[in-house]
């Protein structure tokens, strides 16, 4: 069985910043736990490395400020040893987490980053309209991606 991992991060109490969580929660009922492991968190944490090292594929989902609201894209991720960023905090970037998996467990799963441009990062729950539409589109996209990845493996 292919092990897929979805790590959605951001602050669900900061409106569009929580889009990853909403993507994760709407995919949760669609797949069994043995197919897709879902982790939601405010940040990418070093402790996630064990789950990453056990996965064949990982999707990271986060909101971004550098995209137009409602725009989204998927890009492949590579392990990044950007050491300067983490000397004083306990959180990492997805690339750093992959690097960590590679160094500690000798395996870095194939991974993609899905970034969704946010408009409203004020205190509160719920998405702005454009991001809501993007959220639905990303769910549909991920549903297809995950189904494809799991069926390839079965053959």
């Amino acid at each position: 069985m292919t092990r897929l991992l979805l790590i959605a991060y951001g602050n669900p109490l900061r409106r569009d910043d929580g889009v990853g969580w909403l993507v994760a929660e709407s995919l949760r009922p669609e797949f069994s736990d043995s197919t897709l492991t879902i982790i939601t968190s405010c940040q990418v944490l070093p402790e996630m490395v064990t789950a990453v090292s056990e996965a064949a594929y990982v999707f990271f989902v986060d909101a971004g400020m550098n995209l137009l609201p409602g725009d989204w894209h998927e890009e492949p991720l590579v392990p990044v040893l950007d050491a300067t960023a983490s000397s004083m905090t306990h959180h990492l970037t997805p690339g750093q987490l992959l690097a960590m998996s590679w160094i500690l467990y000798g395996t870095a799963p194939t991974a993609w980053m899905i970034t969704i441009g946010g408009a409203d990062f004020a205190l509160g729950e719920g998405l702005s309209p454009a991001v809501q539409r993007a959220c639905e589109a990303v769910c549909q996209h991920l549903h297809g991606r995950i189904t494809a990845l799991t069926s390839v493996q079965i053959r």
Partner: protein
Amino acid sequence: MTNKVISIDPVTRIEGHARITIQLDSKGQVADAHFHVTQYRGFEKFSEGRPFREMPSLMARICGICPVSHLVTSAKACDELLAVRVPPTAVKLRKILTLAQMVQSHALSFFYLSAPDLLLGMDADPAKRNIFGIMESNPEMARGGVRLRQFGQQIIELLGDKRIHPAWVVPGGVNAPLTAEKREQMQAMIPEMKAFALHMLEWFVPTQTRFAEEILAFANFPTMYLGLVGPGNTLEHYDGDLRLVDAKGKMVEAAIDPYSYQDAFGEAVEEHSYLKSPFYRPLGYPDGIYRVGPLARLNIVDRCGTPLADEALAQFKQIPLEERQSSFYYHYARLVEILYGVERIEQLLDDSRILDTHVQALASPNAFEGVGIAEAPRGTLLHHYKIDENGLIQWANLIIATGNNNLAMDKGVLQTARHFIKKGKLDDGVLNRVEAVIRTFDPCLSCSTHAVGQMPLHIQLVSAAGEVTDEIKR
């Protein structure tokens, strides 16, 4: 050369916000140095008028790092208000929670915050001196750090259903028993954790010879040590006697009455910090300086009470006590305590009555005053409440683990600065050491500045060239 003030702001890789200032005289020698805690809270004040049963959850909000310690200590103070005997199984479950918190906290302090210095050296390239540097140079240790932290977090989550602010510990006990399934999940993790804890000790202990200078100058001075001890002078984090020993290991107070702590300890307010400085009253301020936390606990006890940790403690005790007064040994002590924590959790889980369902004693308040004491990862934590006849909090006072170490931290900064700063010559390695001495104590500043008090103000204007152009004090 004129007078010069060096400011390290913020101090990195600690929990909370702080600043260090070092004053140089005209010859470039260190004239004085201080550790400033720059954040400000107000918990004692806003608990007034609240029903006492809210206190454990309310006080847990002091800190997102060690909420469990406040939860447990507050519940112990509330037990005193109820004046009941907490069911033995509830006591054991609370102990497991306390130890799990300690393991994950020590793992964070050692592996995430301090290991970069310890593994790569104080003078290593700052770009390498971080968690990635550790992973590359010792992956086994990094795996252990991650897994030990996870272990502690998972136990807290399994017991309290929440990782950060569990409401499971309540006055009189806990509000749900442990299930067989959860016990098995916890037990399954133990062997791996023991192996990791042992591996860390095997690796770290010999490497300490590299740090002779740091051992010499990292808050290396005689102080008393304060901590809880179990029967037979064993390591204890939840129950037991509050013991104070002097720098030579001689008993000062075998068992301080929790209700007389205000006779034993005073709290001095320093102008330069929001953090109060407790001291042992009979010796006065500042001679009544003492330390708490992992090093203090190990320097007080004779035994741990678990087989592997007892061996580790025996090895630790081969270092002469006068050398073991260096705060550098907090790191070593933390590793011994991690091993102890894992072993003790195993013992408690194996207890035949750990699944008992009677886990809460029910009562109305029977006493107007309650003091609860427990050992937080960082040291002795005390909550003291007074209620009216209906159970509303009239007054609360907290003495926080990190606060107990405030005098020693402040003095330690001065000692380290004097030792490493020669003729005003500064480099990154020297500055890193001044921070590292604070990190040995693993201070949690969010917690320790919980109280309302005087707001000291200390602003220093330092030009790019290092000239103090202005300074305001209040």
